[in-house]
């Protein structure tokens, strides 16, 4: 893709420097802290699994009972229990669900426990590495069969078994990526439900069993269609690292995983979110998972023309936090969206310019492009035409991950036929104008070029301001997404802990080593 906008390389480089400076103090803070869900994720990667009769998951039971000693990390005590009791993780998990409180088990040989924990962690990481290997093998086997951009479709029936039908149909129609949308407000649960589920609202619970069921269904239909099908779910929320761990174990391929989404859009405490996102991203990095960030959300509440710079600024920050967690550029599905008011004269040109700008500034990143949602109405005919304009821009600017818009966006979660029409029309258009982007240039100083330059300038200005203010203070003052989030406010702060000097986490250590990060 030839560059069309003539953006200043210096400005782009400066923006990246600003992002580094902005994130540095936050990364320092992260380094010194852990959280209940980081510990639970760690436990899951040692084998903690299952749930008690009330549905409380084993990792929660363990972490709750270890609340006093948690700043040392939960791994040691879980491994200690295994060593002392001479149990397998499965046996221990059963005992725990039956009432065993492992905090009551006296600490035995620390070295033995540490070794045990390291060994278990290594076995789980090996499983994740195998998953990654399998994915890479399949992608090589079916090379050239996926659409470009990848066509990403959501299923959201609330029932994993219905979701499977919808997903398989979507794949037969041409989808490359299936995202199982999560039930309303799961992000606010401080635990991950257990088992297959059939009752969600506007989406389906993210559970490890649901992941497994959908993975198998997609592998099946992918084999038939000779296309590797990417499975996607949502990590963001109070259990970000745990869901990342579950996804890595069940070979998910993409994960919604933003560094600030929870803070801004779900009012989750900022300290907690920053700590959680890092650990979850390390897992994703290792698993070869592509993260999707949530910049599109800025535009569902703010104006897409005026606030375009907030999207770009957030992309720079998400990128920086991602690199710091060991992710590679090809794993960064930075988000943006086609959300301009359709009545704006030349709105299409601004969208085109912004999409092209993202492409040029993040050339190796897959970029996740979101369809019109806010301005969709009950007029499904106009809706499908708006989606068409979006499909056009996406193909013409070489986006990586293309979330298909639904003509019924303003009405209901997608019907099977809505999804069919979305894929069918997108494939028509993307084939019909496949090389358009390569065949045109932008007029020097034209509307598109000027708009992109303006957005970059505003972004830089904004990042400078955030650097001066400090990221956490900036959030507190409402500089992002037009919401103010007090540092000590929001959900989940009580789950945050400073690491003690004895802090032990074999998963973290192994990941840091493997990813070459500190």
């Amino acid at each position, binding site marked *: 893709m030839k560059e069309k906008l003539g953006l200043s390389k210096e400005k782009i480089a400066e923006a990246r420097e600003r992002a580094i400076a902005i994130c540095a103090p936050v990364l320092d803070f992260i380094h010194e802290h852990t959280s209940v869900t980081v510990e639970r994720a760690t436990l899951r990667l040692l084998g903690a699994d299952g749930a008690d009769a009330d549905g409380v998951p084993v990792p929660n039971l363990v972490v709750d009972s270890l609340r006093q000693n948690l700043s040392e990390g939960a791994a040691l005590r879980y491994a200690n229990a295994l060593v002392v009791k001479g149990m397998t993780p499965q046996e221990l998990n059963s005992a725990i669900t039956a009432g065993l409180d492992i905090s009551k088990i006296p600490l035995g040989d620390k070295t033995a426990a540490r070794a045990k924990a390291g060994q278990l962690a290594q076995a789980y990481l090996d499983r994740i590495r195998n998953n990654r290997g399998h994915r890479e093998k399949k992608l090589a086997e079916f090379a050239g069969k996926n659409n470009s951009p990848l066509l990403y479709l959501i299923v*959201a029936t609330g029932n994993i078994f219905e979701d499977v039908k919808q997903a398989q149909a979507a794949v037969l129609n041409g989808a490359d990526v299936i995202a199982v949308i999560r039930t309303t407000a799961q992000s606010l649960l401080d635990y991950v439900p257990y088992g297959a589920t059939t009752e969600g609202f506007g989406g389906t619970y993210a559970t490890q069993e649901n992941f497994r069921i959908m993975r198998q269904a997609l592998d099946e239909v992918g084999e038939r269609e000779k296309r590797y099908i990417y499975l996607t779910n949502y990590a963001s929320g109070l259990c970000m690292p745990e869901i990342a761990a579950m996804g890595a174990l069940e070979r998910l391929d993409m994960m919604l995983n933003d560094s600030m989404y929870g803070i801004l859009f779900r009012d989750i405490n900022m300290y907690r979110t920053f700590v959680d996102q890092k650990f979850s991203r390390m897992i994703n990095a290792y698993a070869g998972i592509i993260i999707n960030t949530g910049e599109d959300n800025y535009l569902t509440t703010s104006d897409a023309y005026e606030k375009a710079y907030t999207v770009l600024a957030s992309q720079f920050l998400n990128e920086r936090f991602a690199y710091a967690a060991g992710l590679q550029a090809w794993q960064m599905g930075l988000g943006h969206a086609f959300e301009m008011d359709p009545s704006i004269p030349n709105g299409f040109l601004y969208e085109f310019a912004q999409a092209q700008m993202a492409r040029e500034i993040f050339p190796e990143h897959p970029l996740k492009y979101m369809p019109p949602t806010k301005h969709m109405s009950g007029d499904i005919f106009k809706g499908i035409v708006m989606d068409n304009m979006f499909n056009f821009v996406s193909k013409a600017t070489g986006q990586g991950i293309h979330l298909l818009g639904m003509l019924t966006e303003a*009405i209901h979660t997608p*019907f099977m036929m809505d999804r069919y029409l979305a894929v069918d029309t997108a494939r028509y258009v993307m084939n019909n104008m496949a090389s358009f982007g390569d065949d045109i240039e932008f007029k020097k100083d034209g509307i598109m070029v000027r708009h992109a330059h303006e957005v970059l300038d505003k972004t830089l200005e904004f990042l400078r301001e955030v650097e001066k203010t400090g990221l956490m203070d900036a959030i507190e003052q409402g500089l992002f997404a037009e919401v103010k989030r007090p540092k000590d406010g929001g959900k989940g702060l009580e789950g945050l802990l400073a690491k003690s000097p004895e802090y032990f986490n074999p998963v973290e250590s192994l990941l840091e080593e493997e990813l070459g990060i500190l």
Partner: protein
Amino acid sequence: MAHIVRPYGDTLDDGKVQLSFTLPVPHGLKAQEAARIMVLGWGFSDCEIVHSARISDNFTFFVAYAKTERGVDYDAVEADRNEEEKSMSMDEVNEFIRARIGRKVVVVGACTGFDAHTVGIDAIMNMKGYNHHYGLERYSMMEAHNLGAQVPNERLLEYAVKVNADAILVSQVVTQKDTHIHNLTNLIELLEAEGLRSKFICIVGGPRISNKLAVQLGYDAGFGRGTYADDVATFIVKKLAERMER
């Protein structure tokens, strides 16, 4: 055992259906309510008017989603034509003619009446065919005469008699005010008046034609959208063989 099927939105038997229509009433809340009542009147158990727009002072457009309890017994449905029988390919048809009929099969086709849409009949008859399916003119064991468009029924009949045709192929595309029905009926009446109906296999095709309709109007078969020469040829030669062997 009945196998009842219902419209499907995202859950089996949720009965979801999309509708759109115009009512000759001014745009507004009253119009929306009228539209809702209209939809409920068709027996839907639930209806949301998700969009309404003013088309003009006295016309309003609606988009609705509704839910039905009603279903169809799928086991009792009879398809317009049996799909199990795959059509033969051109080569197979030629082979079939050689083996079972033993002489060239003569067909005469035309787009009749005032209808000037030749693309459909050409797709079936012309050498070059349609969508990589050759037309009847290319079949070595067929003799195909395509009379083109706006052919009066009288002339078509006369011509068919002259070349001693086995089959008459009629194309009808324009259906406004049932003009195709009148035109098709007229041809059969002509044939019958002259005592020639049983001499020809009579076939009609066009985007709005179904086999049911054709048979009802006195034709041997009808072919709709997406027909290829193979389909018609297969029908003709089988029918012919059947008649000859009787």
